[in-house]
């Protein structure tokens, strides 16, 4: 049984990242595993889950999401073994500090030793990242510059776009994946979704053909040509 909880889509769903929950759920369900998908709203308790999903959002809502998570059982549940996929604002919230609403600095949840400051300009455009030899594709739209603490591994090396700092994107721990890629990232990168499922379920998966394979191939081709279209 794999349980998925999409956290606060009203705050962290501005850039379509709520789609990650649907994609993850469908790719587990279609392989015949039991699976559940819940959406956790502003007034809800954070439930027990195998994996939590956090997306991108606007400045004020990002700050509120951090406050709500901080007051919830989220950090405890992640420390006890739950997995997390965090995108954009979600990536920043899990770190030590982040800046929103000008240069005001706010405390993060401190789950990962990373710090996000305000970048010199907004990063908007196609993004591709080399993750252990495979291409992860998507679209970035953020104003943050994220610096990894000592010993924290990046998710991958930037091939196109800026992501965390122009060199690397996001971070990766035993149970946390973090990226600046929207798309949503699991829709555009079926292999990445399956890698997460493999890790959460702790077992190898049979391949699953879907329309997403065509999409992934096309985006890789388009991005390697250097055109945005």
């Amino acid at each position, binding site marked *: 049984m794999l349980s998925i909880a999409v956290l606060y889509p009203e705050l962290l769903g501005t850039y379509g990242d709520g789609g990650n929950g*649907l994609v993850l759920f469908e790719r587990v369900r279609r392989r015949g595993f039991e699976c559940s998908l819940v959406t956790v709203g502003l007034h809800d308790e954070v439930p027990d889950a195998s994996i939590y999903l956090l997306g991108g959002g606007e400045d*004020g809502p990002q700050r509120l999401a951090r406050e709500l998570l901080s007051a919830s059982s989220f950090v405890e549940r992640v420390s006890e073994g739950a997995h997390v996929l965090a995108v954009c604002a979600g990536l920043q919230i899990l770190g030590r500090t982040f800046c929103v609403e000008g240069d005001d600095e706010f405390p993060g949840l401190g789950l990962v030793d990373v710090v996000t400051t305000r970048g010199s300009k907004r990063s908007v455009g196609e993004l591709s990242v080399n993750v252990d030899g495979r291409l992860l594709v998507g679209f970035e739209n953020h104003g943050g510059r994220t610096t990894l603490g000592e010993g924290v591994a990046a998710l991958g090396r930037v091939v196109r776009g800026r992501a965390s700092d122009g060199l690397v994107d996001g971070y990766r721990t035993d149970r946390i994946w973090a990226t600046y890629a929207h798309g*949503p990232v699991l829709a555009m990168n079926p292999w990445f979704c399956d890698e997460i499922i493999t890790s959460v379920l702790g077992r190898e998966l049979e391949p699953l053909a879907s329309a997403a394979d065509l999409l992934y191939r096309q985006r890789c081709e388009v991005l390697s040509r250097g055109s945005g279209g």
Partner: protein
Amino acid sequence: MGTGRSWRENLAVSALKGVNWVSRVTKRGSGTVAGGHVGLRIAPELLTVLARDRTIIVVSGTNGKTTTTALCVAGWGGEVATNVTGANMPAGHVAALAGSNDQRVVLEADEAWLAEVVRATKPRVVVLLNLSRDQLDRANEVRQMAERWRQCFASPQNCDVVVVANANDPLVVYAVCDAPKVLWCDVATPWSLDAQSCPRCTLPFMHSDGAWRCSCGLAKPVVLATRLGLDLSVHGEKTALLLSLPGEFNRSNAAMAATALVEVGVAITASVPRMQRVTGVAGRYTLRSWNGHQLRLLLAKNPAGFDALLTTVPEGTCDVWVAINANIADGRDPSWLYDVAFEQLVGHRVWCLGDRRLDLATRLDYAGVSYRIADDAAQIPVGEGPVNLLANYTAFQEWMARSRPC
């Protein structure tokens, strides 16, 4: 025309008309924007000059601007100056005003240009329909837009403007919370994902009985000028509101248009029957033909607009084509497809078109909708009954150019 203008302003108007005439006869453009740019270059305050002594209604919001503008024009009756579809920035506005002597004017304004248009034209009425996520790669996040509107309507220079505002959209309510003259409209606003937390203080809203409020005091207004149920009621006067245009969202647009027209002296019993005669707006809703197919073209640019239009797709199995591009004018990131309730299309025959048809196909696949991908629309067999073709901005323009009125 020409009285009270400086030589420079007269030159600007002549140049504007000249450029637009050339644009039209050489078919390089629709003859609205290029001349407007030239005119504004020669006389930067041209919009103010041309707007002087006219009665102006300005319409803005993320969705429904073009339709509401058309409904205001129709409901007012007679000759009304208005901008051409899509030309909703100052260059289009000066072209509309220079090309007409009509004293009565309705202007559609892009959200990001609203403050400038209000400053320059001093409108009698501004209609604020809604605010939601749209083209986030090039536009401001929606809360920043609400803040810019708030600063505009809080300005003492704009204190005479009457704002007709959607009471069910918290971002709109925040945008006019400091405006002195507001007529609140209680109209259906199903999209609420961008306003679950307060735009003023960020705390979550509390909802009950169709109302919403925040502990900071921002709340759904209680004194409502306009209510819309089966009947439309404005300042207590009632009339039935049935339109030729489909969808509850268009009834909401009409209710707000009728409220604006009351402010310029047109009773709802006069304006609403005239609005009923509107059957299409800039190629939308009416049937068009292409390659043996009958197409009903629908423009949907963002999640709120898409969700609203999906409600107009008839029940039962029908042919639905969805065309998605991601050019600059569309927004280059199609992630928003996952915010649209495409699950509603289960049971229909859906074809995926446009540059980003594979993004769409993936979305429909995960939604459980049966779909086919058309690399070339000419391959699609002609079915029974009209096709509902939902397209985003540049895809819609392509289909408008390709198809002909039936």
